[in-house]
């Protein structure tokens, strides 16, 4: 639990700003879903904003982030432009991926965000490889790989973590533990003592923290990222949180009692962070208002934008060969 006495009030306000931006982005994305202009599935990060925020505050622009299907928050926190993201969700021209990816493949290589991923756990081995390249090139960058608690039951979790240890790679692995894998309580499908215990058994230093305490995330991430950047090898951060929405934007999440969700709303990470700094109420309110204005603008611009031109379907496949050969 963060100690209020030595708190950096400006940093808290900055975190609140980022968390509100994520929250506002997600709410606008959900609005897009309602209006049927978000075209595929989206996986909201409402309630989980503190992890993206606390971690990315400690990453440089040229550090690298790999995310999951639930990647909007991470992407924003890494510095991506929300308008381009909203365009991508709406499948519009000017989306980060030109409309080819959508929510589950959101990426912004310009800010080191190397992609969400539609395959659970797949980002873990890719992250290990990104770290491998950094080491080979002698760079000082850090890779951060965020995944859910469901991902730790797939093989790439073991293979990627082992790899990072064996090659002593600069990778921070973050398990964003919201207690659920889709409609299933993850604990019922996970043997043993969970993510950190497993990570330790593979040789990583690991810490388990309250992921709804943004300052705790910030501090732990800072320590770990510093150690990693100084050649200390991979680290593992297990952050507890709760998904306040359904698994997807259209999941009513009837598999959990209303009371549980109501109780968890009291643990809203933004409310908690705000409570740390009484004197900053106005600054935080202002940041919130700006965040909603920004995301509502992003929504409007994206909504008004055009779909990409159909021939772009044939670009960026690969250099060799004609993708139209034999078609239709």
């Amino acid at each position, binding site marked *: 639990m963060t100690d209020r006495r030595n708190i950096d009030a400006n940093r808290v306000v900055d975190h609140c700003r980022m968390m509100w931006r994520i929250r506002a982005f997600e709410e606008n994305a959900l609005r897009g879903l309602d209006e049927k202009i978000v075209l595929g599935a989206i996986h909201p990060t409402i309630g989980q904003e503190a992890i993206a925020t606390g971690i990315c505050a400690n990453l440089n622009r040229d550090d690298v982030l790999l995310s999951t299907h639930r990647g909007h928050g991470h992407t924003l926190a890494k510095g991506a432009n929300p308008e381009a993201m909203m365009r991508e969700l709406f499948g519009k021209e000017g989306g980060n991926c030109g409309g080819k990816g959508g929510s589950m493949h959101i990426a912004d290589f310009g800010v080191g965000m190397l992609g969400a991923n*539609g395959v659970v756990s797949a980002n873990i081995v890719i992250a290990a490889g990104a770290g491998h390249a950094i080491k080979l090139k002698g760079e000082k960058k850090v890779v951060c790989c965020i995944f859910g608690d469901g991902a730790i039951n797939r093989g790439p979790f073991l293979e990627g973590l082992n790899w990072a240890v064996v090659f002593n790679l600069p990778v921070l692995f973050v398990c964003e533990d919201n207690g659920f894998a889709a409609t299933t309580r993850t604990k019922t499908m996970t043997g043993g003592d969970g993510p950190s215990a497993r990570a330790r058994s593979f040789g990583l230093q690991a810490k388990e923290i309250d992921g709804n305490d943004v300052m705790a995330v910030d501090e732990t991430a800072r320590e770990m990222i510093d150690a990693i950047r100084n050649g200390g090898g991979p680290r593992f951060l297990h952050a507890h949180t709760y998904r306040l929405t359904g698994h997807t934007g259209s999941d009513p999440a009837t598999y959990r009692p209303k009371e549980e969700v109501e109780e968890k709303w009291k643990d809203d990470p933004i409310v908690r962070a705000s409570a740390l700094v009484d004197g900053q109420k106005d600054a935080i309110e202002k940041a919130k208002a700006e965040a909603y204005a920004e995301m509502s603008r992003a929504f409007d611009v994206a909504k008004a934008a055009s779909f990409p031109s159909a021939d772009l379907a044939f670009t960026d496949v690969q250099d060799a060969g004609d993708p139209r*050969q034999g078609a239709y």
Partner: protein
Amino acid sequence: MAIMTYADAAKAGLAEEMRRDPHVWAVGEDLGRGGVFGQYGGMLAEFGPERISDAPISEACIMGAAVGAAMMGTRPVVEMRFSDFALCAIDELVNQAAKARYMFGGQARVPLVVREPIGMWRSSAAQHSQSLESWYTHIPGLVVVCPSSPADNKGLLKTAIRSDDPVVYMEHKGLWPVEGEVPEGDHLVPFGKANVLREGRDVTIVSWSAQVHLCMKAAEQLAKDGIEAEVIDLRTLWPWDKDRVLASVEKTGRLIVAQEAVSVSGFGAEIAATVSETLHGALKAPVKRLGAPRIPVSYAPPLEDKARVTADQIAAAATALVGR
């Protein structure tokens, strides 16, 4: 006959087999909650959590465990959620399930059914839209099933469950809500028997899975122009009903193979090559293959649509073949 959706028909088929044989069980992520598409909805209540079993996110283990459980005398039906995720379990399917009987000289049987929902849905993009049925037709030991209607989805699933071979059972995500008549009782559809959905003298159109419906639409358009297309739904790709296809092409002299999958090395190539070789002299026109370009599936509709083979394209190809 009852009217049922494609999803409910499969559910009815699975439930019947589970009632008939206590060794049939289903396993996959979130099955207890009914599965991603509701295709297991309500089954937990009847069969309990041991037989409608939730699984960790562990496709390799779902498939591998099914291999072991099948070798030990049960009949697992495994759910891969999206066929794309079955790519996390390919060793278990191809190197283990498909080969065990042969490698061990007939000592093993691996009676498992892998349900792999395929195809484009709504803006699901490159990792949730693939149709890789041709891969599995290339693997000795595997049966490949692609039902296009509620009746077939019941009858073929029941046959698949009773099969002693491993079966890759590919339901199309776009078909779940489609309704149709399903025969009452113990409705079984055999492997390797195509379904002639429409007879015609001018051109044969062969297809499978959701694409069949576009072929029927094309055939209706063609009929207005006086072109009578014979539409054949293969239903199963291995074994595939070569005799029925050849008989039809002998009659019509023309063949179109239409598939949702990427055209290059799609199963359409196998059919086209086989028919071209066998009926070379009888063909009035070259066999025409229709399939997707060699591009991943996009999210944005105009781009996604470029990966679709449309009814209009099928009709146009048929018109060109017939030479009108």
